[in-house]
């Protein structure tokens, strides 16, 4: 190869290699969100949440806190977390209502319904699945699982195709009308990486929500897991949720 050929090839090679490398970097995407603080090691954590169904009183404060903390649109069509009320009737029928979509809390207590034998509240949120179907279907890799087990959406990359919303069995995702991208619970990732609790956990007056690290040995969540009979939602879909429900009724889907 003479000098001229070499130079000609080099002119082609370097920009091409740089472009390819940039593309590869792009393709890899944001493995970790840019905002994690210095000294935080994601590989040392595996976050989850415990829900003590018996403790939830349906006050809806978690939902309000979440909307404020995460700038979720106020309209009753977009929720990162919400509360469902179950009523089991004497004849075995179940009625369910989402109390978080109510415009205002009822001013008076509802008259007691004698046919209702049991009633309870179930907080719902993204299950931060270990096998997330939403991550599997995203065509551009905009939604991804962090090393500490949280499923996030990169709003800079999301194209708004809504496939992830279809793929989520729990209805945990919505298209944020402000950003036109998919949105969902992040376990308040900006807070937990700073050592704080998610907003919903922080405000819960009855400690119905237990946030924790399944890799931590003396963690509250690990203890919660040990002492309670635990269920997850839709286990047959093999999504391996990390939101663990204690004493969950079989009626809840």
């Amino acid at each position, binding site marked *: 190869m003479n000098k001229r050929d070499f130079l000609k090839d080099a002119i082609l090679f370097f920009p091409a290699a740089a472009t390819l490398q940039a593309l590869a970097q792009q393709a890899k995407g944001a493995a970790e969100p840019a905002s994690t603080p210095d000294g935080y090691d994601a590989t040392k954590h595996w976050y989850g949440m415990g829900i003590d169904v018996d403790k939830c009183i349906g006050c809806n404060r978690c939902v309000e806190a979440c909307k404020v903390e995460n700038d979720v649109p106020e309209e009753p069509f977009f929720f990162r977390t919400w509360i469902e009320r179950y009523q089991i009737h004497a004849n075995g029928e179940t009625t369910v209502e989402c109390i978080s979509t109510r415009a205002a809390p009822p001013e008076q207590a509802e008259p007691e319904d004698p046919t209702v034998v049991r009633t309870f509240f179930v907080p719902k949120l993204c299950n931060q699945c270990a096998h997330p179907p939403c991550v599997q279907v995203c065509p551009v890799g905009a939604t991804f699982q962090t090393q500490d087990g949280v499923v996030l959406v990169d709003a800079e990359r999301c194209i708004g195709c809504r496939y992830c*919303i279809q793929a989520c069995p729990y209805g945990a995702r919505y298209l944020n009308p402000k950003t036109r991208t998919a949105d969902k619970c992040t376990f308040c990732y900006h807070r937990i990486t700073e050592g704080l609790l998610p907003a919903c956990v922080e405000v819960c007056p009855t400690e119905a929500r237990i946030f924790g690290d399944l890799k931590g040995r003396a963690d509250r969540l690990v203890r919660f897991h040990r002492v309670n009979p635990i269920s997850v939602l839709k286990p047959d879909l093999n999504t391996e949720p990390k939101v663990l429900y204690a004493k969950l009724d079989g009626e809840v889907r």
Partner: protein
Amino acid sequence: MSAIPESLHEQLSHQLEQVIGFIYPNEVETQWAILIVVYPYITGIVAGAFILASLVKVFNVVEVQPIYRLALLTALAFMLVAGMPLQLHLGHPLRAYEIFMTPQPTSAMAMFGFVYLWYLLGILLIEIWFEYRQQLVLMARQSRGLMKGVYSALSLFSRDLSPEALAFDKKASKFVTIIGIPSAFLLHGYVGFIFGSVKANPWWGSVLMPIVFLMSAIVSGIAMVMFIYILLSLLRNEKLDMRCLDKIGLFLLVAIIVDFALEALDYIHRLYQSEESIGILTELVSYRLFTSLVVVQLLLGMLLPLLILVLVRSVRFNEELRKLLYFTSSLLLLLGIFSMRWNVVIGGQLYSKSFRGLMAYKMELTGIESLMTALLLLALPFIILTVLFRLLPPRWMDNQVPVAVP
């Protein structure tokens, strides 16, 4: 109040009022609306029209020769529009290129861009070019001025009309068709997989989905070519080749029977297995999809044309009546398959994944995701086709006009 667009708020409030039972609160919004109904409908027509065309080249069905070019151009016209509903539907249309730049290998949707490009650039355009090359070279020679340039460019400035070159055209076009058949299967089977692989949604999640999509694609493609063929003859006041039409009718009949059998199997299987979702799916069909599924898709769009096509084959009708019956059944089938796409795409979003309630979909009349856009997208292939017919006349070779080779 956080500001969400007024029209969206109005639509969602209206849809919320129509909810029956309990749904998850995020489920009020219909994520995939009318444009995503149009998308599989259009790709289906592409795949079906191409498969009809390939019958001529690969299986030597000589009777269908007169519509060979028509079918190819129909496939191309619809193919050029197929990506548009997807593009328009995106929350960030300008980021669509990311699917090509940084595709996620586990995503069923990410590969669609490549399948689409492969089919358009690797199959359709190449086959059409080989089919038309000889004619383009001749037209470039005969025309003057601007058109001479256009035809030269379309023929990619080739001039060789030697017998060897023409023989190569034939061989190449046959070769492309042979690869084209599995590619057409891939194109639309793949669209079915996008829906069929969603395990969260039992209305979609079925292994049969890609095959059902494929067979219904073949039905809609053949019906579309038949419709255009009859329509053209009416517009131009030309005589139809009845042998060709009867043969297309036969293929159509076979395709409907297979499609019907597959869809019936799907429903029987669901009912018999009677899984957890069967209760809500039964309610979905009875309260939300009765008209579009039972009346339009099944009775009007499948059984009636099936009956007509069986009648045409068993009773000796005269040509005029046959033509009318074919025309009617092709229209009914096109309506039926559109309905089928609607029932899959919209139907799958009208029941809650909690299996406790039903949602509603209120179609917007204007705007991006609206009836108007859908109609425009469905009309666009016909406009493209009109231009294509001017540029690449489908009849020259078929009319046996002697081609002078200098």
